[in-house]
């Protein structure tokens, strides 16, 4: 018998028992909705992180002091002194081939002020003139810090958009005098808008010359410098990393076998670790949802068994007028699959809706929910599979019914 006819039959049977059909598919609806909601949130997050990191580029690298290895500290043992200085940075630039640009970074918190307006930015960064190129972050108005500004220790500052609005610098912020901590500085540039990442406002940043930041944050800052750089080509990244490691171990006099006192992060690794965390979240949710779908499938099997029993006479009549086993099998199987697919579709819509709503409601600047095509396909495949798997037994029971006994069934 043709599929279209069975589909019409299935829809008729579902319509005839609307409430029951709905309750039957509730398990599937909830299961699919849950997985789609979580996947849409996680995917939105991953998309944003990936985009963010891709903006930095595959040739980005950061060398930072590593405090992680402090396990030897204890009574009588002097903790290892972790240091990373601008001298290290300059040595890297001078001795490691393959580096395009490099900037030291010191960061900390301080107030910025103009008149009676004050604001504490997310971070004050002390960098050199290479920052825009290293971090792929351009100036929108005015100019960035120059080598001359650094050499001559000029009191200049480049600010993010958020600072402009917080301090009410108006439409012509360039040239205005503000205070960064207790040091006055002239605004020479405003950075382009970058938006938010994981709750961090990338526009709430203040850039000052490296030496000015050291002055601002105290002597300790000089010893805890980060070095951010761009390698010339992506294929040189491992080579550059190894060379930096060798150089710094030598400069820091780290004995063979001892761990590094610095950490080198490359964009690829950041991306991979982020993706693996998000992948784990998705996997856990998928597992939970598998259970929900199992329960949903059992619900469908249960109702299909009831339905087969209720319609024993109908099956008898169909067989009497010429329905073969496979006709009856197809009829009930298609009914089960239609039920579960309908549940899957409703779940998909609900899940996406919930994801969108949650991404708006969640604290921080959660990215917009995004449902990838594979999740849609997976939801439907899974629903269809549940329908076929749990519909098979009731359908084969219906197909095997004896026509004489079915016709006699009260």
């Amino acid at each position, binding site marked *: *018998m*043709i599929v279209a*006819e069975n589909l019409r039959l299935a829809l008729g049977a579902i319509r005839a028992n609307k409430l029951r059909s709905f309750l039957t598919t509730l398990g599937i609806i909830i299961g699919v909705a849950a997985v789609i909601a979580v996947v849409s949130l996680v995917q939105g997050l991953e998309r944003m992180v990936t985009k963010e990191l891709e903006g930095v580029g595959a040739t980005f690298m950061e060398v930072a002091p590593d405090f992680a290895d402090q396990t030897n500290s204890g009574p009588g043992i002097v903790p290892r002194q972790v240091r990373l200085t601008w001298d290290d940075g300059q040595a890297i630039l001078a001795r490691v081939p393959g580096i395009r640009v490099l900037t030291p970074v010191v960061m900390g918190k301080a107030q910025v002020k103009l008149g009676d307006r004050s604001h504490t930015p997310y971070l004050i960064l002390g960098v050199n003139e290479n920052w825009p190129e290293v971090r792929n972050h351009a100036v929108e108005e005015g100019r960035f810090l120059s080598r001359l500004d650094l050499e001559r220790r000029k009191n200049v500052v480049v600010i993010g958009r958020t600072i402009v609005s917080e301090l009410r610098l108006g439409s012509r912020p360039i040239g205005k005098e503000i205070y960064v901590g207790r040091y006055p500085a002239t605004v020479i540039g405003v950075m382009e808008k970058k938006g938010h990442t994981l709750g961090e406002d990338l526009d709430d940043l203040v850039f000052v010359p490296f030496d000015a930041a050291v002055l601002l944050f105290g002597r300790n800052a000089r010893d805890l410098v980060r070095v951010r750089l761009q390698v010339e080509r992506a294929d040189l990244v491992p080579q550059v990393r190894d060379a930096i490691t060798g150089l710094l171990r030598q400069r820091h006099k780290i004995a063979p076998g001892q761990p590094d006192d610095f950490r080198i992060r490359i964009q690829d690794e950041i991306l991979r670790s982020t993706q693996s965390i998000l992948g784990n979240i998705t996997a856990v949710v998928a597992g939970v949802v598998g259970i929900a779908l199992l329960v949903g499938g059992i619900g469908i099997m249960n109702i299909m068994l009831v339905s087969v029993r209720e319609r024993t006479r109908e099956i*008898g009549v169909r067989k009497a*007028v*010429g329905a*073969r*086993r*496979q006709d009856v099998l197809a009829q009930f199987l298609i009914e089960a699959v239609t039920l579960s697919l309908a549940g899957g579709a409703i779940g998909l819509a609900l899940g996406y809706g919930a994801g969108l709503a949650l991404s708006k409601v969640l604290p921080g600047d959660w990215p917009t929910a995004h449902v990838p095509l594979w999740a849609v396909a997976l939801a439907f495949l899974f629903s269809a599979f549940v329908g076929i798997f749990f519909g098979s037994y009731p359908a084969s029971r219906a197909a095997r019914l004896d026509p004489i006994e079915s*016709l006699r069934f009260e």
Partner: protein
Amino acid sequence: MPLIELRDVYKIYDMGAEKVHALNGVDLTIERGEYVAIMGSSGSGKSTLMNLLGCLDTPTSGSYVLNDTPVQDLGDNELAGIRNKEIGFVFQTFNLLARTDALHNVELPLIYAGLPRAERRDRARRALERVGLADRTHHQPNELSGGQRQRVAVARALVNDPSILLADEPTGNLDSATSKEIMELFDELHRGGNTVILVTHEPDIAEHANRKVQLRDGKIVGDHETPRSPRSPSGAA
């Protein structure tokens, strides 16, 4: 060639401790165009015989040739095909599909015959016209009277142009006036050339047939040609 030829047919049910001989060596030949009543009390084996004739079941032993096809050894699916092509059932309890309009009920055998939708609808509509229900095509069974329901069932039995119309106590659930109407419909179908087999225990229903086969204890104990009674064939009493 006869339409139906049963030779030495046995049907034995294994009820655990004992074996029940529902049919005990039945020979029966029915020609095309006959109007036969199979009679017998409950337990005589007439239901078993009807199930065999209708290809719902196969004999334990013996042979059954229906329209040149030996059907005694066919499997489930082949029997379904034979039923679809050769047999039109009319049941005591109508057995229409609920929540399904008359037209679709009549269409049912054609669906399993694999006919395209337009042709099915057309033939189903004509079958309903033949039983006088042209104006009830979109009524559901619960919107129809008992007599009308049985007419829909007759239309369903006719729609495939089967070799045999097989009616099992077709008036058992109807009042006497409606019974008369339905029997007149069968008489008319017979006059139109259909082979009709009635299974009944009511003598006055059997009177409509022109051959009565009497069953008792799984055996044929009487087989009479009966000239139509005076009220037939016009149907007037």
